[in-house]
């Protein structure tokens, strides 16, 4: 049997709050066509609608600090 190869990808998205706190959410299987304007669109919507809060007394969401598309290829060797 040949080696087993699986590919997976995660969008590591770092959210920043005005109390200085930041939080990373790993979003599985991001679209390969994601652009920075998609992330900026989400950021703008979040600034208006505030779906998330920071630790200190519900500090408001500030911005998306980074969004990193991490693609992983796992090859399980057939031994």
């Amino acid at each position, binding site marked *: 049997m040949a080696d087993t190869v699986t590919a997976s990808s995660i*969008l590591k998205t770092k959210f920043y709050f005005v109390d200085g706190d930041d*939080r990373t*959410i790993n*979003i*599985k*299987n*991001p*679209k390969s066509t*994601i652009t920075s304007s*998609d992330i900026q669109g*989400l950021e703008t*919507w*979040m600034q208006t*609608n*505030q*779906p*998330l*809060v*920071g*630790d200190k*007394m*519900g500090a408001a969401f500030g911005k998306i600090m980074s969004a990193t598309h991490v693609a992983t290829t796992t090859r399980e060797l057939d031994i």
Partner: protein
Amino acid sequence: MADTDLKVKSSYAGKTQTLTISDANPKASDSVLLEFAQRVNALTDNTYSSTDKVTTVNLDTESDKQTPTLQLRAGTGTTPLTEVTITGKGTTGATGKRIYYDGDGEVYYRMYSASGEDGWLFLSTKKATPEESIIEAYLMTSTNAPDGTYYIDLYSTETENYKAATWKVTVTLTTS
């Protein structure tokens, strides 16, 4: 303190998966949280399934909170006034206002008019039903203060566990 998580369920290549988004804003409406979950999913190739909002409450530290309602009745009779104007008496003084709670049921608003000194607006709480507290306001003034117009600015400070107070402002002036 209650924590609110979103559990976003979706499927990819036939396998279901759950993304947990923690620290959702407990003051956000359910429709905002749902839209957020769907927008996050829209960045993916996952097929969206559902979103649950899960609130965790530590019963050891939580206590019941009420939504405070401040209701001040004004004028004679029961018809509420739409403007809050208090005519009081005071000598010359600074402008401003100060609110404090004396610890045993009375909340004091101290007001300063633009041209006069303070009149004290004295609020006393009275629980009418388990669901509401009615605060009655009384104006106390000093004896030699001039007539003038005093203004009250009422606002609520939201904390994690309270909803904003609803302010229906009609002011009762007790003259005696």
